[in-house]
């Protein structure tokens, strides 16, 4: 159980929730959230949007029953959070090129903020793609070196990656596949996958994805994978 500090709409349908939490949390990891008993039955995986000791932040889109319930919660209400789960993004020692689409931008903020805090001399650029209404752009601008925004278009049309950059992408699968395809083979590319999850810890085999190294569990072996492992590129 974690107590909610704040839970407000960033734009209609997109909420930011801050809850009490301390412990170690890596960018790209996620928590299983629930604020209900058996309807829906399962908890919902939500990525870490930002974290500092005492405050864990989620950014989520209201798409169905679970996220609808989350959106009704008020400061002081409690939410059950289990985690952090998953491998998270790897430590990057090069410059960073981040490509986020829609709510897939959620885990990228903590990634970049932490990367720049630990590597002030390395560059970090971020491409942000949104279908209709952008959100979080100012926050990204405050931590990244460069923000390239696209609304309504196809982000990979704009994308050009520098040789010294590691690429990290999170967004709709179709976008990540495109990124995985267009980035030159010399660059390392990490993608953060989604899957329907029941347990979140590797016990149910419900989130399995096929990889070149056999079946992997998105929840435990991922959600972050090297592009070549999960996509045919």
């Amino acid at each position, binding site marked *: 159980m974690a107590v909610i500090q704040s839970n407000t709409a960033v734009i209609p349908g997109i909420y930011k929730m801050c809850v009490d939490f301390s412990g170690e949390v890596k960018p790209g990891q996620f928590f299983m959230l629930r604020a209900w008993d*058996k309807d829906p039955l*399962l908890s919902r995986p939500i990525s870490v949007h930002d974290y500092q000791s005492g405050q864990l932040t989620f950014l989520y889109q209201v798409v169905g029953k679970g996220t609808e319930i989350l959106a009704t919660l008020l400061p002081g209400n409690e939410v059950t959070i289990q985690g952090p789960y998953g491998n998270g993004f790897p430590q990057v020692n090069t410059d960073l090129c981040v490509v986020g689409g829609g709510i897939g931008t959620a885990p990228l903020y903590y990634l970049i903020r932490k990367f720049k805090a630990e590597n002030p001399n390395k560059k970090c650029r971020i491409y942000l793609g949104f279908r209709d209404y952008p959100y979080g752009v100012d926050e990204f601008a405050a931590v990244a070196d460069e923000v390239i925004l696209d609304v309504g278009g196809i982000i990979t049309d704009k994308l050009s990656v520098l040789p010294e950059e590691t690429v990290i992408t999170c967004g709709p699968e179709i976008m990540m596949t495109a990124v995985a395809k267009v980035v030159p083979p010399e660059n390392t590319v990490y993608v953060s996958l989604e899957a*329907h999850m*029941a*347990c979140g*810890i590797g016990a*149910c*085999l419900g989130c399995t994805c096929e990889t070149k190294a*056999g079946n992997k569990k998105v929840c435990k072996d991922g959600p972050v994978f090297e592009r070549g492992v999960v996509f045919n590129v």
Partner: protein
Amino acid sequence: MSECLTTKFNDILFKNPVIPASGTFGFGREYEAFYDLAKLGGLCSKGLTLEPKAGNKGLRLWETPAGLMNSIGLENPGIDAFINNEWPHLKELDTVTIVNVGGKDEESYLTAIEKLNAIDIKLIELNISCPNVKAGGMAYGIKAETAADITKKVVEISRHPIMVKLSPNGEALVDIALACEAAGAQGISLINTLLGMAIDYKKKAAVFDNQYAGLSGPAVKPIALRMTHQVCQAVDIPVMAMGGISNWEDALEFIMAGATCIQVGTINFNNPMAPIDIIAGLEAYCVREKLDNIDQIRGII
């Protein structure tokens, strides 16, 4: 820990009657982050087949009201990998390991069972009721003759006791249970998942590649409880019951209906501490009701 929950399943001693169900608990390791597995009465392995299996393609999970549909398709590392990688860990635990075995044909069942003769497990759960594999699986479990036939052959070659896991999807369940008993089964477990269907109307398509998949979770509890009661009334061998158990009250109801042990499945995903909560709840109940052992209320209905 008091003795009020110790339970004998034939001559196998369980420190309590609460056992995580096959396929919802991996091989236990993931839950070691939550609690000491030695607190459990036992644990039941993911369904194992002779050869490793990659399981089903496409979406594997779908939520329904108070239920979960799954189409895992028995993804598992195979019996050999289990014996080499999981058993050394499991055998050190101070709890009963039950090994769940599936198969695609008679030969694969029998060979798998023979391999298990090499290790000192206490109980085999013979899964003839998985609705998510095309060959074998449920095909054996929905008719009394085929269920009895495979049971008989397995019992003959196994040096471990065999508990047959029944499908709720077949013909008269009681007949199947009786046939398995007559064929030499030393226990019955039930229920496996109910055959259901999900449609994604947005995609105008079935959710699962196999069209149908297995339904479990609290939604199925009333059906599982009825089947447990029917089978417990009919057979003389012990029954390990499951289906939608989500708290100690549910567990108690199954025990009152006659179950010797109970298994805890889907609710592990909703509450990883569920088996421990259930054990604590049952223990507190025994104390409140001044029961020396839970056996005193077993089968009273």
